[in-house]
């Protein structure tokens, strides 16, 4: 299904684990070091220099852009590294996170509490995903280089709903279908 940003609470209620979505609109990038700074700033000041309330964060650190291109290669990075920072950001008002891989049970609990949603894009498809980005500009922490927060304008950015507000978990559901060997 196609969705436009901002993703309102009404839209979040319609998203179910396993849905494939194509996002058009504004998303923000951020990974390890930017998360560390955002959480430190929120602890001290309760607000960020650029509001991310109701917004989408995409966990990515792109390669430098070629001339005449908005961005370089830009696939998702592993999300579990941001689990440690998720609670204060969800409490602040962040709504949607896009990354890759599974996340901790503690994260899922907080995400549901704050009615957020977690999506995955295809890891390692950075060249392909860069075609979905039409514009990019740094909005925060420029000194972090590839780890700075960029505002991206995307068109039909593909992602799969992984954890929804109802406790749906696409990873558990799908893996179960094909797993024939159990591990401890």
């Amino acid at each position, binding site marked *: 299904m196609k969705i436009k940003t901002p993703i309102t609470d009404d839209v979040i209620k319609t998203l179910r684990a396993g849905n494939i979505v194509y996002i058009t609109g504004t998303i923000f990038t951020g990974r390890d070091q930017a998360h560390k700074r955002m959480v430190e700033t929120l602890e001290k000041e309760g607000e960020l220099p650029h509001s991310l309330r109701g917004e989408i964060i995409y966990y990515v650190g792109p390669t*430098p852009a070629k001339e005449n291109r908005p961005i370089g290669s830009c696939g998702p990075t592993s999300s579990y590294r941001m689990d440690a920072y998720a609670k204060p950001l969800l409490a602040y008002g962040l709504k949607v996170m896009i990354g890759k891989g599974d996340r901790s049970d503690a994260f899922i609990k907080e995400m549901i509490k704050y009615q957020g949603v977690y999506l995955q894009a295809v890891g390692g498809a950075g*060249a*392909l995903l860069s075609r979905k980005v039409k514009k990019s500009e740094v909005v925060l922490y420029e000194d972090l280089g590839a780890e700075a927060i960029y505002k991206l304008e995307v068109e039909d950015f593909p992602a799969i709903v992984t954890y929804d507000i109802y406790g749906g978990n696409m990873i558990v559901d799908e893996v179960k279908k094909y797993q024939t060997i159990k591990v401890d």
Partner: protein
Amino acid sequence: MRNVDVRLITETVKELALDANSNIGKSFIDKLREALKKEKSEIGKNVIEQIIENDEIALENNEPMCQDTGLVVVFVELGYDVHLNGDLYDAINQGVREAYEAGLLRKSVAKHPISRGNTGDNTPAIIHVKLVPGDQIRILLAPKGGGSENMSLVKMLVPSDGIEGIKKLVLHTIFYAGGKPCPPLVVGIGLGGNLEKSALLAKEAIMRDLDDINPDPILRKLEEDLLSDINELGVGPMGFGGSTTALAVKINSYPCHIASLPVAINLQCHASRHKEKTI
């Protein structure tokens, strides 16, 4: 004695780093196409299709297939009869520096493990040098991504753990890594040696030709059994579920202490990038 200008080393490293990041190679794409035919999950198929399309875009446009252009690992086999007119390590790092600047590749090296920061030029590379007979230099270079490296490990098993202990450890590691190391994977396993030797064996294993045949019959059977078992875990392409979790398992071994059974597992993501050249 053959005199070699270190600038030749720098140029070769630069060429290999640029090529590795944008050109995964036809044989790897063929492996992905084979996997696509066999994949049972529709979502899994869609993921493999996106990976193939991505790798083709990267090759056509000479741009990095993945934004994680890696920490550079370089294996050098240096002939005894080569004389270099400068420092080998400096020459390699200079090649990395030039490639990452010219190729608009991401600088992914933190200055310090605790205070972080960034070295700004993707150096230093991790360099392994082996002395060999002759007057040639073989350079094998791999930009290694952080996602799959983070899911890798060394575990000191004991002899009584045996083959079953090894299998259990590998399956457990890959199942719980899920999508984080970006499957479909190439699984490199180092058996024996000691702590650091096993890790090096595992790293060398992921550089092997995917179609080569292990000359050791015990290891060959273990490679086949593990590949089959790994693909029954259900993890699938990018951990989205499916029957393609690994494309190959490669095991290298070495004698070890009578008390030990070191096992290293080095996971390689589907952006399996390594290139080599002999000069």
